């Protein structure tokens, strides 16, 4: 079993077997994080660039930790400290990185399709760390991993994603990841934040939260972008919070042993109340730990793809 691509651009189109391979590998690698020396020499000599055009401390640190645990050589390149501000094009930046003989590039960008763009102009393996509202595949994988770790299965679980579905790359990767493994996925949000024809992705769409939560096992609460109010997608955050905020009162509709997830960072009191976010059903901190293991698995599985056949 191996991954079909030497890049990780999206979970759309990935098979159940491929996703399972990544999750199984992550499960094994998670053990390393508990060792006295939490580092293995696997990617010694492998150069990885973290190319971040969008500020994202969490994702970047998680990737960097995963890279370092595997002994890769890590270079951070973020838009604020680089030549991007001087008007250098993405293509030029990429050419420069290519000249540095880099093996893997982890990229975060505000425009959809940039990771794909990189595969067209460089030899390195490309890992998407979030592109526009398109996908955030490692987040999708770590969400599926976290749920699988708790329930020992994905098939048949009812997963509800709540929030601004239209502008969420996490929602898209979660949808593809969970549905590939047989979960029953629903999305829920204000009608202005449900993109056209979302049902074609294999999910049910709701704008009534109580209806969506009925019989759910997992609720993934998305961060609501505070600036959406300006685009008149929302009259006010107060109104959003009243209609879509996850509060303790609403949780009695869920199945026993339910799970609350959030990709972070949390707007406490807006999309979720602190008592739910910090409550016994929350796996929000497990998600952070698992993020490192999942990213290690992805780095490991995508490295060394250009070897000779023995």
């Amino acid at each position: 079993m191996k991954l079909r691509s030497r890049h990780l651009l999206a979970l759309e189109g990935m098979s159940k077997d491929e996703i399972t391979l990544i999750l199984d590998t992550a499960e094994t690698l998670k053990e390393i994080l508990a060792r006295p020396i939490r580092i293995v020499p696997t990617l010694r000599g492998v150069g990885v660039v973290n190319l971040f055009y969008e500020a994202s401390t969490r994702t970047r640190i998680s990737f960097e930790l995963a890279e370092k645990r595997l002994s890769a050589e890590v270079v951070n390149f973020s838009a604020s400290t680089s030549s991007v501000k001087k008007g250098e094009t993405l293509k030029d930046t990429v050419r420069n990185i290519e000249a540095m003989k880099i093996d893997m590039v982890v990229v975060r960008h505000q425009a959809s399709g940039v990771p794909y763009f990189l595969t067209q102009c460089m030899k390195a393996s490309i890992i998407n760390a979030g592109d526009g509202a398109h996908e955030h595949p490692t987040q999708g994988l770590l969400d599926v991993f976290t749920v699988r770790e708790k329930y020992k299965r994905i098939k048949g679980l009812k997963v509800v994603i709540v929030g601004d579905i239209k502008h969420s790359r996490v929602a898209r990767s979660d949808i593809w990841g969970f549905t590939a493994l047989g979960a029953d996925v629903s999305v829920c949000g204000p009608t202005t934040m449900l993109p056209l024809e979302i049902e074609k992705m294999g999910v049910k769409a709701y704008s009534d939260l109580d209806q969506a939560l009925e019989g759910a096992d997992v609720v993934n609460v998305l961060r609501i972008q505070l600036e959406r109010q300006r685009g008149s997608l929302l009259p006010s955050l107060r109104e959003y919070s009243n209609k879509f905020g996850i509060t303790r009162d609403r949780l009695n509709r869920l199945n026993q042993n339910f799970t609350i997830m959030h990709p972070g960072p949390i707007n406490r009191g807006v999309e979720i109340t602190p008592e739910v976010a910090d409550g016994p059903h929350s796996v929000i901190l497990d998600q952070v730990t698992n993020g490192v293991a999942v990213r290690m698995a992805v780095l490991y599985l995508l490295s060394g793809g250009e070897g000779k056949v023995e």
Partner: protein
Amino acid sequence: MPKKQKIVLVMDAKAVERALIRVAHEMVEKNKGAENLAVIGIKTRGAYLAERIAKLIEQIEKVKIPVGLMDITLYRDDIQTKLEQPVVQKTEVLFDVVDKVIVLVDDVLFTGRTIRAALDQIIDFGRPKNIQLAVLVDRGHRELPIRADYVGKNIPTAKDDRVNVKITEVDKEDSVSIIKQ
């Protein structure tokens, strides 16, 4: 047309059993008992051999010794040249290695690279008193300065011969044969 292969059986089940019993005795003798001893088998077949040796020692010395299983994939030195990444299996060393006498167990000793990887990994778990090596078969052709402390059988081979070790737990029988190309 595939080339004609010649298969030579070098150890049958009885020979494997005798070799393991002898190795277990040698370990106890060399370490003057089994008090501070632990065995770590290298996956896949070395792991089963380690379990068997631990049982044999238990019979001889009437003490239970810790057994660990180790996958050395993440410590291999050829990971970047492989076309397909090997599946990483679980490493389970659930005891503290510090100050223990660790006996690494593998089925075949060949280039020595697997053992090098295993040594690195053990040292990342802690600082043992010393590390010894037991193998069922030593077939020669070392690429690193590594030698075994306990050898079931020395088998001279050509470099491109294949040594096929079968273990009941995975292969339904115990045997060692050489496949001559």
